[in-house]
Structure formats: structure tokens, C-alpha cells
């Protein structure tokens, strides 16, 4: 049936419509979250090299003070989210299960939590290079979830031009309302941020993409739009995964990003609204990131809401503060479609965390029977990349990984989970694809190694 609706020009092909479940928190304003007694800051919070620690154990630091500096180009600096004492530098657990070097920061209980000022960057006079440097120094990474260092993304490669800056306010994941609240409450930061971004990328116009279920945010932004800035707000039909870079570009510009290429091929750069707002908020003061907006929700949470939480707050502390159901069984960081399950409550909130979901036993609707693929085609009709997840799934089951990659474009799958969501046979397709991709990458690396050797 899907393809009938696909005649709609303003959207990408296929995709799904999971229940939005956003009503619980979309109306709740952002609230400040208390400081945890101990803040745990892993250095590997972003894609790329972990930051390099510049403080010692026992050192006292002030909120906003630099704790670690960028270690290379694809890396960012990190700032103290609270005033306090560095009590330990050791391995800390992360959501991937891997250990990462990190800082244990004991918060001063009665500190004013004044934030340090740094070198302000003036949007009107700064050069693009200065802005990019400022972004890196502020420790800004993609807050949409990928946590990719934003300054790397904004650097337009030689020979390419950026026509359009796309601000991603889509927030297509169910449950999450972070970006929604940011758009309603931090419009000025967003517009300032866009000013920086336009300058940094050299883009001629900016388009803010918002799904129709956040019409109020779109109206709000349009109303407060400053004069003279080339910004347009575009309201898009609701469909998952519209927030994904590729899909958003297709929806807004009607272009496709060639397989394996970056958005700049379509003359666009995509930045999340929260990231934009953060840039707009921090750069004028030369500050670094200390906190971010996170939606805490899900059937197992007592005090649902959108909170401004210091980075590094331990998950256990967060859950204790909001109160959770006795029967909690699964906790996710991120949304229900792409979020990661938490195996260890000792991990902490990182820059990329956009939401925390708590499900109890009875809410986890995981059918125990996995039927064989009946080739119903639901997944084919859902996959926004237009892959054939059914065939891929069967091949994965029989471990034909090379064939998956060579004949069925496995590597183009971006693990949005649409296929698994719709599969009536409850086949864990995405999981198959993730392992398959890992194995294929490993094999390719081995092959390269052999060639070199």
C-alpha cells in the first residue's frame, strides 16, 4: 500500500509509522536536573579519537574548565560539567560494554556552579576557520545521537560547495521530545547557531526540517525568525526515519546521496537543532558543553520529562531521581527504534544521549517465536534505502555474508530498524545486518592487510 502514498513529493520512499508516544513529555518544559555527587566522564564520548586528559587526580576544577583537549582533528575537547575535585582517573564503563579512560569528578555540594567564560567568538566578524575551531574547542559533537565532531562535518572538502544548510528538527524517533522542546524554548540560540553555521559552511540558505506532529515548534520558529537571515521552515509529513540525514535531504531537496558518499555530494550539510542551539549558546561566550537536554520517559518512569542534565551524570543516579517502576526490565539510551540497551547502570550520560527510556517487563513486547521469513514483503516496503531485507535476512541466517555485501548492498543499510519493526515473523533483521556488516568489514580489512603484506 505504501507506494500509493509515496506519490507525495515532500518525502522519501517507504518508511514506517510507529506510534509516536510523545504526548507524555512533549508538553513538559525543560527542567534543570540536580547534580550527582560524583560525575563520571568517559573520554570516548564521540566518534573519533578520545580526548586527552589535561588534569591530574586530586585537582580541583571549576565548572566549564577544560578537562581534556582534542586529541587530533577528529576529536573534541571536554569541559567540567560541575565544579569539583578530580578524585580518580581510571577506566569507566561505556554503553558499548567497552571500558574507556575517564574522569571521576566529585561535585562540590554547595558550589554556585558558575560557568567559566572563554574566548567569545563574534558571529559577525569571525572567519569560518575561527568558528570551526571554536566549535571544536567547545567540545561540540552531533547531539542528534551520532556524536560526530561537528567541526569535521562542517569542513567543506576542497572542490565542493555547500548550498544548503539543513537543520534537523525532525525527531522521528517515538517517545523523544528533546528537539521539540529545544525548538520551542531556545529559538534565539538556534538562530544564532544558524548564523555561525551559515558562515562556517558558506551555505546560502538554511532550511529547518520539522515533522508535522511538531507544528507548534514550526510556528514558533517562524514567528520569531529574525529579519535578514535566509532561513526557511519546512514542515514534513510524519514518517520514520525522516530524521536520518539521507532521508531528510531527500525529503527537503528531492536529491539522493550516492551510496557510500556524504551529504555534501548533494550540496547540503545536516545539523541537528539541539547541536545548532548549543553552538548558538556557547560560542558567543567561548564556553564548552556541560549539559544537554534529555527526554526521560517510557512506561517505567515515574517523573517523565525533558531535563537539562549535566554530561557525566551516572545513569543510576538519573533513574533514582526520576523514580522507576519496580518491574523495570530494560533501559535504553536513545529512542526505541535505534537506542541501545543498557547492560550496566554505572555508565553515565554522554553528549550523544538524547533520551532515556525505561520499559518494564510487561511493556517489552518481544515475541518468543521467530517464524521463518514468509517473504511477505513488509520489510521491502518499509526499508527507506530500498534494500531487500528479506533476502538479506535469509542470507545472513545461512552466513552468506559476502553475497549480502556484493549482491544485496548490505553496506548501505543504516540500521534504522524499520524492517525489523514491521516483520510479522519477528526476525531480528537489524541484528543480523549489524553482525554481517561487522564481519564484512573485518574481512575487507583482512584482505587489505594481506595485499599490503
Amino acid at each position, binding site marked *: 500500500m505504501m507506494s500509493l502514498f509515496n506519490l507525495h513529493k515532500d518525502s522519501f520512499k517507504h518508511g514506517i509509522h510507529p506510534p509516536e508516544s510523545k504526548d507524555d513529555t512533549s508538553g513538559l518544559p525543560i527542567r534543570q536536573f540536580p547534580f550527582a555527587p560524583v560525575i563520571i566522564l568517559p573520554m570516548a564520548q564521540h566518534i573519533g579519537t578520545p580526548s586527552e586528559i589535561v588534569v591530574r587526580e586530586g585537582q580541583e576544577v571549576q565548572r566549564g574548565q577544560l578537562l581534556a583537549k582534542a586529541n587530533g582533528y577528529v576529536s573534541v575537547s571536554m569541559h567540567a560539567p560541575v565544579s569539583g575535585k578530580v578524585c580518580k582517573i581510571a577506566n569507566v564503563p561505556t554503553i558499548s560494554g567497552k571500558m574507556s579512560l575517564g574522569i571521576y569528578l566529585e561535585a562540590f555540594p554547595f558550589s554556585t556552579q558558575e560557568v567559566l567564560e572563554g574566548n567569545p567568538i563574534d558571529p559577525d566578524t569571525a572567519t569560518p576557520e575561527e568558528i570551526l575551531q571554536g566549535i571544536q574547542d567547545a567540545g561540540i559533537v552531533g547531539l542528534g545521537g551520532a556524536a560526530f565532531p561537528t567541526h569535521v562535518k562542517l569542513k567543506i572538502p576542497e572542490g565542493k560547495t555547500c548550498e544548503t544548510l539543513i537543520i534537523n528538527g525532525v525527531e522521528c524517533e517515538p517517545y523523544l521530545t528533546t528537539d521539540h522542546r529545544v525548538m520551542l524554548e531556545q529559538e534565539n540560540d538556534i538562530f544564532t547557531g544558524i548564523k555561525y553555521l551559515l558562515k562556517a559552511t558558506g551555505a546560502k540558505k538554511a532550511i529547518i526540517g520539522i515533522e508535522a506532529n511538531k507544528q507548534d515548534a514550526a510556528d514558533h520558529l517562524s514567528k520569531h525568525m529574525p529579519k535578514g537571515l535566509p532561513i526557511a521552515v519546512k514542515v514534513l509529513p510524519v514518517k520514520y526515519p525522516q530524521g536520518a540525514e539521507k532521508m531528510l535531504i531527500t525529503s527537503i531537496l528531492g536529491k539522493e546521496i550516492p551510496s557510500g558518499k556524504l551529504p555534501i555530494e548533494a550540496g547540503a550539510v545536516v545539523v541537528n537543532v539541539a547541536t545548532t542551539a548549543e553552538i548558538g549558546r556557547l560560542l558567543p561566550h567561548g564556553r564548552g558543553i556541560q549539559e544537554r537536554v534529555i527526554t526521560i520517559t517510557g512506561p517505567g518512569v515515574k517523573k517523565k520529562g525533558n531535563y537539562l542534565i549535566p554530561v557525566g551524570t551516572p545513569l543510576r543516579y538519573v533513574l533514582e531521581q526520576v523514580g522507576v517502576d519496580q518491574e523495570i526490565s530494560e533501559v535504553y539510551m536513545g529512542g526505541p527504534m535505534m537506542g541501545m540497551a543498557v547492560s550496566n547502570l554505572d555508565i553515565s550520560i554522554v553528549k550523544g544521549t538524547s533520551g532515556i527510556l525505561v520499559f518494564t517487563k510487561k511493556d517489552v513486547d518481544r515475541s518468543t517465536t521467530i517464524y521463518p521469513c514468509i517473504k511477505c514483503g513488509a520489510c521491502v516496503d518499509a526499508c527507506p534505502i530500498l534494500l531487500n531485507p528479506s533476502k538479506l535476512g535469509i542470507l545472513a*541466517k545461512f552466513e552468506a555474508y559476502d553475497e549480502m555485501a556484493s549482491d544485496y548492498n548490505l553496506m548501505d543499510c543504516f540500521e534504522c530498524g524499520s524492517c525489523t519493526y514491521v516483520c510479522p515473523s519477528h526476525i531480528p533483521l537489524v541484528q543480523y545486518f549489524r553482525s554481517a556488516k561487522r564481519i564484512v568489514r573485518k574481512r575487507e580489512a583482512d584482505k587489505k592487510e594481506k595485499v599490503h603484506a
Partner: protein
Amino acid sequence: MNTESLGSIFLNAALVNNFVLAYFLGICPFLGVSGKMETATKMGGAVMFVMLISSMSAYGIHAFLVSIDAPFLQLISYIVVIASTVQLVEMFIKKISPALFKSLGIFLPLITTNCAILGVALFQTSKGYGFLESVVYSLGAGAGFMLALVLIAGIREQMNFADVPNISKGTALTLFIAGILSLCFMGFAGLGA
């Protein structure tokens, strides 16, 4: 003796009386080389080609044998000519494309001992076809062979990725599929009339 049109000769040989599925000719390569689509198409092509050649040479030999009035030499002359021709083709392929030779492996010589090829020669004689009719007949038979081979190869490739129960793995499953295909081809009955 016969009044069939060329089109119906072709259809009859390819579909209605498919050499593999209705006449049981060429079953060995049908079972043996149908595991992979790629080899199946190559084998099909090779068989088609050899069929055409042997049909033409059979036509010539038949005329020759009639002229010297020695019908009893029919079988033996057909088969040596076919065998030698195939061997020639084999050498030729080996020279031209070692890769192709490799992938067809032992089945190239087996084309010689492919019933379908001798079958075409014998049937065209017994049906009293003229030269053009013989050529069309052999093309039809070849196309039918190719079709059967390709169909089953596709299915067997898909079966590599199926939970086939142990007892029906291998030749048994292939035969079952062939049986069902043969039932399917019964649907074509009467089309060539």
C-alpha cells in the same frame, strides 16, 4: 508425412514435449549441473549448440545412409559423428576459454553421452523432418533443455538457503522439484497443435 508448422515444431519440442521433463532425455546433466545458475546457463548453451550441430550432421548422414541403403548404420554413425564433434568443440573451448572449460568440468564429455542430443537426431529422423524443420526442432529442444535447466537451477540456488530436512537433501529434493516442474509443464499440453 508431417504438416506441422515450424512454430509448432518449436513449441512442441521446447514446452509441450520438453526433452527433460516430458521425454526424460538428458537427465544426468539436468541433475548434475543444475546446482548453480551460472554453470546451468553455460551448460544449457553448450547443449543447445551441440544439439544444433548434431541435428544438422544427422540430417546429412541420414541422407547419405538412405542413398547407400544402409539404415542399420544409422545409430552408430550418428553417435560417432556427434561424439567427434563434441570432442572437437571441447578442444576448441579449452583453447579459447580455459575458465569456461574448468567450470563445465567433466560435463563437457558428458554432453556426448547426453541422451537429449542423440534423441534430437533420432526423433527428427523418425518424424521425417526436412532440413529446416530439423534445425528448428533442435533449437526448440535445446531451448527447452535450457529452460528446464535454468528453472531448476534457480530453485536449487534458493534451496541453498532453506532449512531442508536432512532426508530430502541432495538428489532427492532435486528429483522432487523436477517432478513438480514436470507437472507444471503438463499445463502446456496441446499448445503446439
